């Protein structure tokens, strides 16, 4: 069955969420959001919260509630990204240059400097896989990949890009190649990665989306995705937001 790049990424991430009780996702993260909704439909995720969405959340205590839940252990998985991500799992959401005199400034750290520490399964997701984004050492550590001597139940679980999937090895404090997306070569990944990573002797290929997953995405799950992510669902599946989900 043919599939799009987005569908591959969604199914790949969905697999990484299996067994999580509660997944929280930002409203600007349609691929992780769709992955969480797919895994929820498959029964592998208990609950999905899409932050700031109108229907796909049950937040009634304002901006504090997500972070309070995370600190209590009520969120099992979350997604973060980074303008830069380095081989130690450090992420940079602030900018490039010598802070505060930055050459490039990004939006800011948002909740990352707390959630990265507290959510057990943080999945790093960055579609652009280049030496510009995946660097040896970030210019600014918005949140570190690992920590010693502090309360830190959470941290990176893996990194998903347009080319491959990395697992994060907490003991070593670095990434290990888990699978290459169909058609991607190991050389391509090496050429485009600024950090050193471990790799198994035989490198797996990221599994193709299963037909049943694709059916879900293009059907019931797609409709749910269209609520918080209308333009994404429209672009990828031609699904327009049903009336009753309108803002």
């Amino acid at each position, binding site marked *: 069955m043919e599939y799009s790049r987005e569908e591959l990424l969604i199914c790949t991430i969905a697999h990484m969420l299996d067994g999580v009780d509660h997944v929280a996702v930002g409203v*600007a993260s349609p691929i992780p959001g769709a992955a969480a909704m797919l895994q929820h439909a498959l029964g592998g995720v208990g609950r999905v919260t899409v932050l*700031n969405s*109108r229907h796909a959340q049950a*937040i*009634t*205590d*304002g*901006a*504090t*509630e997500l*972070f309070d839940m*995370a*600190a209590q252990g009520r969120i099992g998985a979350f997604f973060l990204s980074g303008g830069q991500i380095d081989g130690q799992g450090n992420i940079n959401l*602030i*900018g490039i240059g010598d*802070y*505060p*005199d*930055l*050459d490039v*400034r*990004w*939006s*800011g*750290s*948002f*909740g*990352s*400097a*707390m*959630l*990265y*520490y*507290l959510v057990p399964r943080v999945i790093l997701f960055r579609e652009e896989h280049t030496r510009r984004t995946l660097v040896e050492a970030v210019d*600014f*550590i*918005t*949140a*570190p990949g690992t*920590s010693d*001597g*502090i*309360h830190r139940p959470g941290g990176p679980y893996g990194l998903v890009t347009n080319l491959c999937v990395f697992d994060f090895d907490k003991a070593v404090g670095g990434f290990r190649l888990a699978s290459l997306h169909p058609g991607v070569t190991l050389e391509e990944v090496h050429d485009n990665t600024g950090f050193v990573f471990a790799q198994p002797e035989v490198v797996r290929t990221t599994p193709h989306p299963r037909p049943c997953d694709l059916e879900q995405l293009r059907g019931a799950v797609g409709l749910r995705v269209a609520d918080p992510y209308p333009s994404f669902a429209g672009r990828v599946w031609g699904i327009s937001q049903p009336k009753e989900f309108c*803002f």
Partner: protein
Amino acid sequence: MITELVDLVAQIPHGASVAVPANRSGPAIAATRAMIRAGLRDLHVIGVPTSGLQADLLIGAGCVAVVESAGVTLDEFGQAPRFVAAVKAGDIALKDSTCPALISAVQAGEKGIPFIPIRGLIGSDLLRHRPDYRVVDNPMEAGDPIVVVPAIRPDVALFHAPLGDRNGNVWIGKSRELMTMAHAARKTLVTVEALSEDDLLADPKHGPATIPAHYIDAVVHVENGCWPIGLSGHRLTDASAMTRYAHMAKTDAGFEEYLSLAPMAAE
């Protein structure tokens, strides 16, 4: 109490710390335009926990000395261009933080306690640049370092809410951080989408999400007071107006032109 924008803005002194909500929780953009027309200077803008168009407009217009926030963004319309330009030019001082630290600090301000602990942050470069954030030993458990942040009591909390009444009570719906901000701030200035003739505080359904009037220093009825930002459950964001802003604000000249046009120059 129920007043006009110009009187609301007159309650904000130069140099005030002004707490504002995130894009999705009701930024008072019409009031922001009035602030720019009034020529406010040296503001310390506090995003609770982030800001967007509102901070960008104020920065671009030269009203801001300090930005304390976990992020400044136009969301799907891209980066906040005047914020980015001001950082590169070194025109504003940055107090970068992370969402829960800002929210907790305002909650500590609400509670009248001098500090509050927060997990995370240790090992982040954010902490290196925030000498006001401290690492202490958890007094409840040896060998457990934890960050404490100082309480924030802003001079002003400013936001747009769905509903007010003639007594000055303000109903906020699910954006509970607006109540936290009003409790923490020394002055609270609000624009409202609609003005009810009923006493919201006495209404059993509205009451529980209503900020009582004694916390509120000005209420101005401004329909569409977030525009071009949307108001959850009421209005969508005006995508074409946002796109236009994001485009024009990319350059100094474009932003100057934006300022010279309605509704910025006059409305």
